[in-house]
């Protein structure tokens, strides 16, 4: 019987400045080198597992969604996803291929699982979607996969709780594993780590909390899913709540996982940058990669 395989999950920051550094080709400059150097091991893993589809769990920052209609969870179901002008100068990238058949399967399963998502047959994808793809697959010709975008609201409170996002991820994982095609799927969650752009506390970064997250999300995510959104804002900053995307990706794998790579670096722009690669247990597992330094 045909059945899709969930191969693993990648959690990565999506800071716009990374997109600018890629566009300008400044990855080897001293400011950027320690950050970009942490990605090749993940790219090697991706080349090995060579996914047919990628579920992108991210948050829109006011490109596709405005406050007139703000879905808590939205799933794309389009043949392709366009990037567009976000207003502050990041170059617009060519469209990204979708996988409408997998999208509709995920939507059917999520709603069956009582996640009443918004479905989008047209959906602009912003830097939170595009920057991680540029980082993970710098060579566009290597992107033979279709994408399924899953957007989580982090703009307007109330935001979905960390526990709810983990549960959404679990349902996404179940949906992938019940897809009756012999394909390999990777889940990518984008955002974080601690940062705050607004208010008198702008520039807030909490290294201790980020390192705590990088550790607990692997073996004891319950510690994080027990937090409220307000606790998360206090510990990680107003935009550090993007950790909820990471928790959704972790939920997709559920159970025990193997950490293949992680990296932490301060600062990229106003943000602590984090990277984590987890493989699903019981999957054909390439040899563990060397973990990056914790700078």
């Amino acid at each position, binding site marked *: 019987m045909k059945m899709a395989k969930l191969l693993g999950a990648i959690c990565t920051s999506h800071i716009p400045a990374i997109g600018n550094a890629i566009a300008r080709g400044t990855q080897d400059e001293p400011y950027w080198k320690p950050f970009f150097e942490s990605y090749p091991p993940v790219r090697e893993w991706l080349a090995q597992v060579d996914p047919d589809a990628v579920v992108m769990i991210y948050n829109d920052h006011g490109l596709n969604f405005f406050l007139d209609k703000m879905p808590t969870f939205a799933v794309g179901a389009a043949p392709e996803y366009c990037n567009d002008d*976000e*207003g502050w100068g990041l170059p617009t990238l060519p469209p990204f291929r979708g996988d409408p058949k997998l999208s509709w399967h995920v939507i059917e399963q999520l709603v069956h699982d009582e996640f009443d998502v918004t479905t989008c047959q047209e959906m602009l994808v912003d830097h939170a979607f595009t920057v991680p793809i540029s980082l993970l697959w710098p060579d566009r010709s290597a992107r033979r996969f279709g994408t399924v975008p899953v957007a989580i609201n982090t703009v307007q409170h109330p935001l979905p709780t960390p526990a709810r996002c983990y549960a959404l991820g679990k349902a996404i994982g179940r949906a992938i594993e019940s897809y009756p095609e012999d394909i390999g799927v990777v889940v990518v969650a984008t955002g974080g780590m601690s940062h705050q752009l607004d208010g008198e506390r702008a520039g*807030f970064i*909490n290294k201790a909390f980020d390192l705590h997250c990088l550790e607990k999300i692997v073996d004891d995510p319950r510690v994080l899913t027990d937090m409220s959104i307000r606790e998360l804002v206090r510990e990680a900053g107003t935009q550090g709540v993007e950790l909820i995307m990471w928790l959704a990706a972790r939920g997709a794998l559920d159970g025990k996982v193997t950490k293949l790579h992680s990296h932490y670096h301060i600062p990229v722009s*106003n943000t602590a940058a984090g990277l984590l690669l987890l493989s699903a247990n019981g999957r054909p597992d390439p040899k563990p990669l060397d973990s990056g330094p914790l700078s």
Partner: protein
Amino acid sequence: MTDMKPVPHEIPGTVIFDGVEAQKGYALNKMCYSFNSSGNRLAFMRNEEAYCRAYGLTAEQRDAVRRRDVLALVHGGGNVYYLAKLAGIFGLGVQDIGAQQTGVTVEEFRARLAVAGG
């Protein structure tokens, strides 16, 4: 952090962009959202005051736009994701607005971030 302390309603220096803020800042954020279009950015630059009035900004919000005062815009219901599009028109990035909101120079703000790396 298993021993989380109870979270007070207020987190110092932090605005939770909830329903109250989203209503207060709707017109302001809608104007900023329009700046995804380069044509709208040009129209704003041609006549800021008229553009702000067309979107129905309050006198306080219009004044904050005139003064490029990001903190006043945040307290006026602006959400930073939309405000970033307005700041971009003024040539201000997230580090510039971080410095402005915390009353330090951009160099000092950057140094503070580097220190957070420990």
